[in-house]
């Protein structure tokens, strides 16, 4: 272990904060194997894990690679595994972890680029695969009023594409062909509220052994999701719709429009 002891204050708390040890996952292209670096960081009650990591990078080790943008769990870029659990580093307060040792790793089940940064291209491309690309033309409703009961939808719009659900899912861990919770939740969004998209196409794509039927109901995705999208529930709703459509096609009534 390459231990680097250096006290870093992340807020104006010099001398008054608690000292927390950070074990930070490190890997650069060409390294034989990943290792952990250790830093001691003086933290205040409001210091987040991202604050601490940025302080480590700014004051102790400028070679630490991490990704962040908004600092308020909207951009989805700082998803990590913090003490073995998927979390957004920007809204995870260090002292609320209740441990003097904080281990920070990149999200699992994704290709690693370096240190805490994973390659998200495959993850993003799953949204294209189910017909709901991340970058799309505006589909804002023509009228500004919200439909009644909209809160009950728990809408997919809350997804911040952070990838924590993929990191937490035990099926993604062992099966690279599985579409994954985020893309399936996006597919349910099309089925539930298609606007001008084709819900049958999304349903056909996900009614597949590597689609909604690959899920084994661990619901870790729903627990890991920082935006309460509840992908596990969406996958089950996709299955119900798919099963209903199949029964309709067998016993008459045809596919529902």
């Amino acid at each position, binding site marked *: 272990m390459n231990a680097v002891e250096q006290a870093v204050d992340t807020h104006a708390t010099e001398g008054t904060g608690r000292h927390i040890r950070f074990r930070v996952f490190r890997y650069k292209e060409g390294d034989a194997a990943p290792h952990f670096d250790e830093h001691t960081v003086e933290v205040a009650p409001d210091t987040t894990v991202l604050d601490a990591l940025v302080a480590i990078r700014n004051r102790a080790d400028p070679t630490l690679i991490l990704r962040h943008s908004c600092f308020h769990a909207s951009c989805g870029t700082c998803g990590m595994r913090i003490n073995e659990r998927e979390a957004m580093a920007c809204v995870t307060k260090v002292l609320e972890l209740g441990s003097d040792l904080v281990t920070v790793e990149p999200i699992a*089940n994704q290709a690693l680029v370096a240190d805490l940064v994973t390659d998200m291209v495959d993850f993003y491309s799953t949204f294209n695969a189910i017909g709901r690309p991340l970058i799309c033309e505006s589909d804002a409703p023509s009228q500004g009023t919200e439909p009644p009961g909209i809160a009950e939808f728990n809408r997919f719009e809350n997804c911040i594409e952070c990838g924590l659900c993929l990191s937490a899912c*035990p099926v993604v*861990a062992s099966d690279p062909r599985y579409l994954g919770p985020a893309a399936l939740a996006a597919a349910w969004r099309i089925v539930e509220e298609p606007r001008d998209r084709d819900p049958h196409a999304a349903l056909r794509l996900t009614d597949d052994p590597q689609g909604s039927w690959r899920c084994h*109901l661990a619901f*870790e995705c729903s627990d890991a999701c920082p935006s309460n999208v509840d992908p596990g529930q969406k996958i*089950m709703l996709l299955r119900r719709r798919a*099963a209903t459509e199949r029964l309709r096609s067998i016993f008459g009534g045809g596919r529902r429009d």
Partner: protein
Amino acid sequence: MSGRAVGGGEPARIERRVASPRRRGVMGWVDVRDRRLGGFGFILNRLTGLGVLLYLFVHLMVLSLLAQGPSAWDNFVSIALSPAFLALDVVLIFGLLAHGLNGIRVTLVGFGLVVDRQRAMFVGLMVIGAVVLVIAALRIFSAG
């Protein structure tokens, strides 16, 4: 730091460099660290499923003793009535109950029914299983 300033004009092509896949593999199934209720249900179903499958083969092997005559079978029965073997029966019943009862939840929720109650259903079914397991264990050991 290996940052490189890019001048005006066409942006430099950014190569996608993927160093190492960090897929957790089958360890992702059984890693119990910081899992929640659904995750433990997933792990429990896998372990008990494998255990029940293993039992099926052991069961067939034991039944094959019947073909070896009465003495072979009587020998097995005397072992089967020992406290250690009876404890294995309790483990077996645990596996069957856990897998079967969680299977009810997995089937219902897996077809999109009572999805929002899946946690409560898991807890409720496991409580039922625990009660049945205790009754079964008492009967097994009192009969012995």
